[in-house]
């Protein structure tokens, strides 16, 4: 049985991220709740080492997976001040306005030192077409 989805459906999901993400956080260990991705490490259950309130996106455009796959680029987030020292290994996208943790990805573990800066390079979020 063949499966298909119109690109507009996938674009709607990516557009939700583009419209609502207002906080990007560098975390130590996996954030699974809003508080994890919004509170600094050492405060409650927070896991945030650094954050920015200026996330921007470029897209959506056709994905690398072919078919109707679609992707959007999370633009580079340059030289964010590190609030708390720790080992960065996750990046979280958050909708603070609705206290929602929307998206989490991984990054190669890197130690960060408070008051230094960290750059999150541009990265893609892709939704594949069904096969």
């Amino acid at each position: 049985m063949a499966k298909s989805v119109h690109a507009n459906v996938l674009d709607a999901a990516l557009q939700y991220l583009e419209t609502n993400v207002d906080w990007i956080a560098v975390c130590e260990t996996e954030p699974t709740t809003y508080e994890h991705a919004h509170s600094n490490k050492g405060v409650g259950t927070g896991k945030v080492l650094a954050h920015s309130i200026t996330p921007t996106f470029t897209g959506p455009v056709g994905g690398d997976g072919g078919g109707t796959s679609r992707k959007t680029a999370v633009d580079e987030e340059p030289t964010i001040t590190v609030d708390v020292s720790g080992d960065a290994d996750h990046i979280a996208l958050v909708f603070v306005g609705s206290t929602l943790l929307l998206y989490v990805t991984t990054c190669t573990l890197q130690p960060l030192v408070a008051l230094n800066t960290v750059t999150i390079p541009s990265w893609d979020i892709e939704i594949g077409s069904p096969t």
Partner: protein
Amino acid sequence: MMDPEVKKQRMLEKSLRMPVNNVVLEVQKGTIDINDLFKHIELKVKEKING
């Protein structure tokens, strides 16, 4: 597409930051596979058909 006015404002803020012993992370691309979702729908439909 992101609201151009919001993007312009945020890009300006980003450009004003100064690096201090800057570390550049290596981020893994996030891919969402919707095949599982379609399989789930198929299963639900079959369940409904079979009562």
